[in-house]
């Protein structure tokens, strides 16, 4: 089996920097999600690992091998593409068998592995069909089966679920997690969908503008974002950021008081659900109230700054109402306004 090590990988397109010195260590068997908005460089990084793109600088190791100069076919990887890339002129069977045949596997071996992969992804009934006769979800399964059929030690996935509709995506996500857990392959999964990343991955690397902002377990990322970007990107609704004045290690605004780091100003990162609605505290004018089922999402302003609050769904609150908020000081993430990085609260 094989872990993956990325050593100072850089990618420039002309003057533009797509990746700025990425270092990454992925232990054998880990499921790592590369998460970020479009254009953050996550797909470029994946394609460099696959050998479909060449890095401007830096090196890629798979297991103990330096694969930087190797062709994709020499890297011993499997990949699932965003648009599935299922070969339209081959039957499902031939698609799933493709990688095995290219490795020169014997017929019996090919049959056995295709049968196993097809069973795993429930596509056995379609093996004789051509992809044109399949739905998007079924093609997706074929693409995954094709990758798993070669028993890869490294599996790369490029937004594999992004072309499915919402319901199917949820279903496939659950199934993928079960199937991939069995495969034991070191998996890199590129996505822009934070729920997907949170639900599937052992660890998530959040990327932004060609840089890995933070890499950690999903829950840790959610609770302790290292940067303002990570806090804002993870979670729905995203974290609120209130720019507050600090005086003598304390922020004080209307009825709210908390010890805070910094000397002049500080940004308080507050999750919508970490706020209690009380009789006194930060005055909050509700502009819009959206009943979302699991919660009642309130949008409005605190001291002139936008703020979203998750209220219990049974509360009777409507637009125009004034509420008072008490954020849980222990769960506030303090962020330096200059560096936009999280800072530890002063004792």
């Amino acid at each position, binding site marked *: 089996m094989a872990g993956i090590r990325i050593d100072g990988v850089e990618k420039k397109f002309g003057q533009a920097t797509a990746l700025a010195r990425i270092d990454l260590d992925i232990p054998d068997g880990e499921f790592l999600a590369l998460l970020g908005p479009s254009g953050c460089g996550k797909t470029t990084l994946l394609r460099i690992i*696959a*050998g*479909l793109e060449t890095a401007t600088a830096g090196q890629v190791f798979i297991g103990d091998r330096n694969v930087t100069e190797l*062709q*994709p*076919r020499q890297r011993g*990887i*499997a*990949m699932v*593409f*965003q*648009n599935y*890339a299922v*070969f*339209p*002129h081959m039957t499902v069977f031939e698609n799933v068998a*493709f*990688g095995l045949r*290219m*490795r020169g596997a014997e017929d019996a071996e090919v049959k056995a592995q295709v049968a196993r992969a097809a069973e795993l992804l429930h596509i056995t009934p379609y093996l004789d069909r051509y992809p044109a006769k399949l739905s998007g979800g079924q093609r997706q399964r074929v693409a995954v089966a*094709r990758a798993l059929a*070669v028993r890869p030690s490294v599996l*790369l996935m490029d937004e594999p679920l992004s072309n499915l509709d919402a319901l199917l995506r949820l279903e496939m996500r659950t199934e993928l997690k079960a199937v991939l857990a069995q495969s034991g392959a070191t998996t890199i999964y590129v996505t822009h969908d934070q729920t997907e990343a949170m639900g599937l991955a052992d660890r998530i690397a959040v990327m932004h503008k060609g840089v890995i902002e933070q890499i950690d377990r999903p829950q840790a990322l959610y609770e302790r974002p290292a940067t303002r970007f990570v806090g804002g990107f993870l979670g729905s609704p995203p974290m609120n950021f209130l720019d507050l004045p600090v005086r003598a290690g304390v922020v004080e605004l209307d009825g709210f008081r908390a010890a805070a780091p910094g000397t002049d100003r500080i940004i308080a990162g507050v999750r919508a659900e970490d706020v209690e609605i009380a009789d006194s505290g930060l005055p909050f004018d509700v502009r819009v109230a959206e009943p979302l089922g699991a919660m009642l999402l309130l949008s409005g302003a605190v001291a002139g700054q936008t703020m979203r609050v998750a209220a219990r769904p049974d509360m009777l609150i409507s637009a125009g109402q004034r509420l008072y908020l008490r954020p849980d000081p222990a769960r506030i993430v303090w962020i330096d306004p200059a560096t936009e990085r999280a800072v530890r609260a002063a004792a």
Partner: protein
Amino acid sequence: MSVGLRRVVLWSGVVTLCLWVLVPIYLIALGAFGGRAGVFRWPKSLLPWDATLASMQTFLAVEGVGRAAVNGALVAALTMLLSLALGAPAGYALARYAFRGANLFRLLVILTRAFPLAILALPLTVTFIRVGLYDTPLGVALVHTALALPFAALVSASLFMGIPRELEEAAWVFGCSRLQAFRKVVLPLALPGLAAAAIFAFVISWNEVFAASVLTVRNKTLTAYLLTVLAESPLHYRFAGGFLLILPSIVFIFAVRKYLFAMWGVSNK
């Protein structure tokens, strides 16, 4: 206008235009099979009273016709092979790579269209005589390839562009070299379109008359042969020849009809 009336107007227009295309072809077919008697019949009948296979056979037996037809087919086949062999790789490069000079090459290809290419056969007579290509099928095919190559290149570029890059990448990842990926994935998918482009090159060559006439003396293509003997041929021979020229076109256009738009629609970008 009511919906019903509109449909009547639309369909009568469509049918009229279909007749406008088809009736002249029918008439020359009558002329081709009517023989001498048909040509001089007055007044003409729209029904094939004079049509016999014999008159067509007589024409085919005329000295030089058979040979010209074979020559024409040979030149067209050579043109087809050459334009595809040269044009398809260029099309692949245009479709798959962003490289310095791509636009310059595209310009060169498109520029050929703003020139009446066949006329360029004039100076080539001298060159061809010198290198021994004059009056040979290969010589004519070379000039015809210059006509067909831009099409082959632009059409195959649009074909290859229509084949998602991901398919090729998937082939690489799953163990193919570049060449293997091209053979196993790209080629099978592009084949019908490439065949259409090839057929189109065939038609271009089969129909071209100026260069073919200028560059040959004895080894004329059918089109060039007919042009040369036009003045001294009786009318029914001319019609037989004309019909013989049209026949393959009808079949070919039918064969490539699915790709006509890929050919013209994209290649005019």
